[in-house]
C-alpha cells in the first residue's frame, strides 16, 4: 500500500470538515464537522506510525481521541447552555457580541 492513499483520504476528510464548519448553521452540526477533521488527523497519525514501524502514531492517535471526547462533552454542554438561555442553537442567531 502507498502511504499517500491514506494521507490523501485524510486530506479529503479534513477539507470536508472545514467546509462543514464554514457552511453549517446548527451548532451540533459544526461540532460534527470538527469531529470529521479530528478523525482525518487520526488517520494521518496512524498511517505515519504504521509506515515508520513505531507505536508513537498509535499513542498520539489515542491522545487525540481523548481530547476529541472531552471537546464534544464540553461543546455540547455549552450548546445546551446557549439553547437554554436563547431558545435557539443556530449560529446565525447568536449575535449578542455583534451589536
Amino acid at each position, binding site marked *: *500500500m502507498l*502511504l*499517500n*492513499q*491514506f*494521507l*490523501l*483520504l485524510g*486530506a*479529503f*476528510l*479534513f*477539507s*470536508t*470538515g*472545514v*467546509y*462543514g464548519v*464554514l*457552511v*453549517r*448553521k*446548527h*451548532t*451540533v*452540526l459544526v*461540532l*460534527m*464537522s470538527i*469531529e*470529521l477533521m479530528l*478523525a482525518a488527523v*487520526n*488517520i494521518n497519525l*496512524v*498511517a505515519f*506510525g*504504521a*509506515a515508520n*514501524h513505531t507505536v*508513537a502514531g498509535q*499513542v498520539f492517535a489515542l491522545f487525540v*481521541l481523548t*481530547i*476529541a*471526547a*472531552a471537546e*464534544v*462533552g*464540553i461543546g*455540547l*454542554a*455549552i*450548546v*445546551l*447552555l446557549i*439553547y437554554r438561555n436563547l431558545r435557539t*442553537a443556530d*449560529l*446565525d442567531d447568536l449575535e449578542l457580541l455583534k451589536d
Partner: protein
Amino acid sequence: MVAENVVFGIIAAAMVIGALGVVRTKNIVHAALYLVVVLAGGAAQFILLGQEFVAWVQVLVYIGAVIVLFLFGIMLTRAPMHPKESLDNDLRWPGAAVALFLAGILGGLLVKTFHADKVDIIAPTRTDAVTNAIFTKYIIPFEVVGVLLLGALIGAVVLARKD
C-alpha cells in the same frame, strides 16, 4: 497487495460518501448516522494498517460514546427533524471554494512529498507494545490527558446543571 488496495478503495469510498453526507444532508439525525459511517471506516482503515488497539478504541469511544452524546445534543436542543429552511448559511459557494483550495494545496503537497513512500505491514502492532509505550515513555502526556479529562468532566457538569 491487490486485495489490500481493493479493501482500502471500498472503505475509502464509503468514508467519502459518509463525509459528504455529514456536510450535505438536510436531516440532523442523518448527519450523525453518516458520521458513524466515517468513523467506522476509519476504524477499518486502522485494522488494515495493522493497528488494532486504536481501531477498537475508536469504535468504543467515538461510535459508542461520542455519537450517543451527539444524538442527546440533537434531542435536547430540539433540532428540527424536517426543517423548512436549509441547515446551511448563505456561504455555501465561498465555503466550497475554501475547502477545494485547501484540498488542492494539501493533495498537491502530499503527492509531491510522499509519492514514493510505502506502508508495508510486517505484523500487526500488538496491544502490549502500545500500552508499554503509554506507561513508560509517554507517561507524562498520559497523566496530563487524565487531568484534562477530569477537568472536562467537572466543567461539563458545572455548565450543564440547572441552578
